[in-house]
């Protein structure tokens, strides 16, 4: 090829998080975990959390999916660390996208998946620890959550 400039289909930050994912791996002693997506749809994200005093002290992920799905998981778990449950519940896919420096339009669903997998893990925790539910927040049942995710096309199968 004519020159050696490295071209990327995504932003530098996305590529960095894809090639060197942060927080990737299992967490056998997780306090909570959440999974969304399906192999048939091309993405599955699983998020593990360790939570102390209502604050996320560790977050890990495992993802089956494209480059931006992996980068979104990496970025989302990175952003989670140190957040309170309340703060984490308010984290949106838009924030993930912004932190990644943007995603192509047809890849936005990856950030939505990241938001949803984080929420799923948080809900898992909150269902086990009702005392930690922020005032006014309604935690969906596992069934409700799966139904909602199935509707947006990335329910766990």
């Amino acid at each position, binding site marked *: 090829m004519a020159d050696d400039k490295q071209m990327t289909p995504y932003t530098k930050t996305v590529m960095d998080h894809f090639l060197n994912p942060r927080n990737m791996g299992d967490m056998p002693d997780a306090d909570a975990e959440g999974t969304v997506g399906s192999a048939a749809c*091309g993405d599955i994200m699983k998020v593990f959390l360790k939570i102390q005093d209502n604050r996320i002290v560790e977050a890990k992920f495992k993802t089956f999916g*494209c480059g931006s*799905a992996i980068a979104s998981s990496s970025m989302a778990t990175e952003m989670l660390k140190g957040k309170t449950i309340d703060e984490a519940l308010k984290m949106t896919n838009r924030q993930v996208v912004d932190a990644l420096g943007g995603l192509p339009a047809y890849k936005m669903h990856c950030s939505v998946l990241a938001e949803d997998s984080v929420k799923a893990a948080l809900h898992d925790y909150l269902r086990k620890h009702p005392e930690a539910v922020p005032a006014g927040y309604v935690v969906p049942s596992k069934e409700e959550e799966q139904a909602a995710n199935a509707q947006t096309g990335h329910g766990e199968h």
Partner: protein
Amino acid sequence: MKRIYLDHITSTPLDPRVFEAMKPFFMERYGNPSAMHQEGLMARDALQKSREQAASFIGARRADEIYFTSGGTEANNLAIKGVAYASQRNGNHLIISTIEHPSVMEAAAFLETQGFVCTRVPVDREGRLDPEQVRAAVTDKTILIATHYANHDIGVIQPVEEIGRVAAEKGAPFFCDANAAAGWLPIDIQKIGAQLLSFTPHRFYGPKGSGVLYRNRKARLQPIIHGGGQENGRRAGTENVPAIVGAGLACELAGREQAERAAHAGVLQKRLIEGLLEQVPYLILNGPPAGPRRSPVNVSVSAEFIEGESQLLLLDHQGIAVASGGSCVSKSLKASHVLKGIGLDEALAQGSIMMTLGRENTVEEMDEVARALAGVAAKLRAMSPLWDQFQKGRIDSLVKPRPKTDGRMNPLF
């Protein structure tokens, strides 16, 4: 870093001989072939030569059976819509397979919005179309039978001669999309017996911006790009003379070198498939085995428990260019309708990558690719929650199911 390019189905580098032939037509012989002055006549002359080269490449008897378009997609659209509109009074029914190139699928879908009706005949698990099923689909309203010679995604070769015979018996014109075949498989229009056949020289070291439609003079054809009288009234617009000149020579060269190119690709294909099956666990080949039912340039595989685009990106990072998902259109990252068409499990379809070989590839490159994909698959599996589940015995592999020792094995979740 020397890269390994394995995406020849979407683009090939221009042959330097072809580039040399095109060069004078940019700044010196720039005339418009419709014009009657020297500049125009020279261009006209060049076009005629290309037409003869393209005709002889596919065994057409007359140069005026060749129509130049801007590419394979346009040629396919012209064939399908052009026949449909020209035959509107005789019928409104088209027959295609379920695994055509998007240019055929979408052209047919558009016609359906305009009152035409299209039957999509299913294929078997290798992707092969059964001529008898085609025959069964014909009605007295059928105005076109269209299918491809070789598939863009999985390389399966269709029984086009038999389909041509069915079409002839039924009195329906047959259009053969040879875009994924031309340059790599021998094409003899007389044997195929198609009234229309399309291909694009940019698949075999010719220039982008050129496509060819062969049309037997008995087949009725309306233009889809209307205007001036170019291409014998079948395709209006100032001709892309340099591209057509290049297309002609690319045809001539491919005609001369096809057997040699195909043999080279065939050796690499076998090596690559064997290397991948050996080195990458839980990987399957999509489409027919290497051999007479498969184009020698195509290697489509699915690695289980991981997704295709991420494989593509990691391979690219290591200097290896491959495609994933929908071949020519990997931007639409939906699992390819071709893989769906052969009944491949959806998760495996998501994990597919597609490699298409070219004449500049080497045996060493094939070995390197197999090694690289093994590494990539391991890295992605380490990230994959599915692999994790599989390791923990919660789901099974479709590619290589575990021996059934107890009742606890579930199918892939």
